[in-house]
């Protein structure tokens, strides 16, 4: 009996430490801006900016790259992917670019890439980005070629409906603010001397009770980590009161929540010296301070309340949709890590072989993880000894293919096209992982 309780205790502990890793400063520095940028893109950058390159008359040289870029700009939420996919296929540039868009979308949105970079490593994140685009285009071209007869027919059927002709004017200040937000993200995550050097030290003007410090240490928490978790809870409450009703105007809680979000970024930036009350003022903190001030200045000066409200709404929508699932997913991955014997993972996927890569892909197909949860799961496999090649294969296949999405696609495309698509994705992801593993080991 006691051993069972102990075992359960160790499982919960594993889940908790998993969560701590997830809420660590370097992850928050990337996730918080990434959510804000995702919301910004979906509210401020009109879809017409990209869809006009995906019309029926667009040349291949434009439509394929535009389709892959479209994944980056438009598709954070799966509810926009399917209508756009069907639209591009049936009324626009055709099956090929539509498939490219479908493939690239979930893998390269800003949340997925930055989060992969922060938890697993920049090599995998960049490989995921580049390979997703390359393979998306290749798979699109192959699909268009396989079904070329049908496609020729379709072009005849298509009356010019003008859906793709819409143009959008994006005011210059949108690009300025977009650039600033990206800079916040980069300054928060880049590991270079300019940003990590400590330029000044600040000793906090109060004493820790020894008891508090010990209690925190027992939970594996640093004071900075504890403070950040408290901040997240405060943001959660303030955002609930201030953001849910954003369309009826800004209230006091809205400003509180915004201020707290800025403060969280600033709190996560400085380097903390372990076991002391000294804070290292590093380049990161100075950079973020300047950038956040600029963000506030530009938003207040060149944007209306309605525009800012739309931005907040989209961001808050993503957070509500994704964040709770992520917390559960991270906790569960921490628990499962203890349950699965390391030898299994090592013997199945510890080496970079074609078979190991295929296993990575198959696991991605049969397991369905909600948006972004594939990243902590991948982290878990990495810790258990999975090689980086199969890991990438898994990360490429998982968001594209799941039993659920295959069923939905069946309804839209028909069984024949889906079978070929699934086969192509499986083969390409396996190859990609294998090649990546080979090049890396060399």
């Amino acid at each position, binding site marked *: 009996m006691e051993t069972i309780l102990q075992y359960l205790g160790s499982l919960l502990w594993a889940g908790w430490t998993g969560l701590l890793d997830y809420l660590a400063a370097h992850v928050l520095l990337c996730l918080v801006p990434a959510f804000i940028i995702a919301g910004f893109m979906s*509210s401020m950058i*009109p*879809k017409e900016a990209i*869809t006009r390159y995906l019309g029926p008359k667009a040349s291949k040289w434009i439509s394929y790259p535009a389709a892959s870029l479209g994944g980056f700009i*438009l598709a954070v*939420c799966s*509810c*926009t992917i*399917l*209508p*756009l996919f*069907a*639209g*591009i296929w*049936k*009324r*626009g540039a055709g099956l090929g670019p539509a498939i490219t868009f479908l493939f690239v979308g979930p893998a390269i949105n800003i949340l997925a890439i930055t989060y992969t970079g922060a938890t697993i490593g920049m090599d995998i994140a960049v490989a995921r980005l580049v390979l997703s685009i390359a393979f998306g285009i290749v798979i699109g071209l192959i699909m268009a070629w396989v079904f070329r007869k049908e496609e020729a027919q379709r072009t005849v059927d298509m009356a010019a*409906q*003008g*859906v*793709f002709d819409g143009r959008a004017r994006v005011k210059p200040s949108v690009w300025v603010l977009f650039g600033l937000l990206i800079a916040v993200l980069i300054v928060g995550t880049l590991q270079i001397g300019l940003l990590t050097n400590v330029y000044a030290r600040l000793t906090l003007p109060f004493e820790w009770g020894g008891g508090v410090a010990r209690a925190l240490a027992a939970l594996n928490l640093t004071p900075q980590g504890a403070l950040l978790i408290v901040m997240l809870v405060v943001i959660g409450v303030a955002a609930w009161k201030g953001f849910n009703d954003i*369309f009826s105007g800004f209230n006091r809680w809205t400003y509180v929540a915004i201020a707290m979000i800025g403060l969280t970024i600033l709190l996560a930036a400085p380097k903390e010296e372990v076991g002391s009350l000294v804070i290292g003022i590093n380049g990161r903190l100075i950079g973020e301070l300047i950038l956040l001030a600029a963000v506030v200045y530009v938003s207040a000066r060149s944007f209306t309340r*309605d525009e800012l409200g*739309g931005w907040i*709404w989209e961001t808050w*929508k993503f957070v509500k*949709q994704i964040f709770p699932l992520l917390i559960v997913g991270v906790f569960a991955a921490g628990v499962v890590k203890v349950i699965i014997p390391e030898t299994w993972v090592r013997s199945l996927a510890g080496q970079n072989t074609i078979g190991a890569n295929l296993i990575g892909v198959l696991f991605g197909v049969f397991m369905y993880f909600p948006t972004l949860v594939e990243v902590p799961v991948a982290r878990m496999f990495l810790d258990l000894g999975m090689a980086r090649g199969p890991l990438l294969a898994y990360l490429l296949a998982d968001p594209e293919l799941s039993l659920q999405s295959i069923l939905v696609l069946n*309804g*839209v495309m028909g069984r024949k096209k889906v079978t070929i698509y699934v086969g192509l994705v499986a083969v390409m992801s396996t190859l990609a992982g294998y090649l990546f593993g080979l090049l890396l080991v060399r």
Partner: protein
Amino acid sequence: MVSIKILGSGCANCKRLEALARKVAGDLGLEAEFEKVTNMDDIMKWPILSTPGLVVNGQVVSSGRIPSEAEVIAWLKQAA
């Protein structure tokens, strides 16, 4: 009688748009008939590329975003 259709599979923005359209119709005192189109095939019969879409008297007036209240007021006034 104004016919208003909301095109969307039921994500948060579609509900938001429906609430907005209902509010404006109520404020203007319009007699309006609302219909929610949630089936993807039916949605794709309309010339839109992304949801939510708003259709007033058979005309798509907006898609892929939540229009501002002022815009919706203008469309509904014109349709009435």
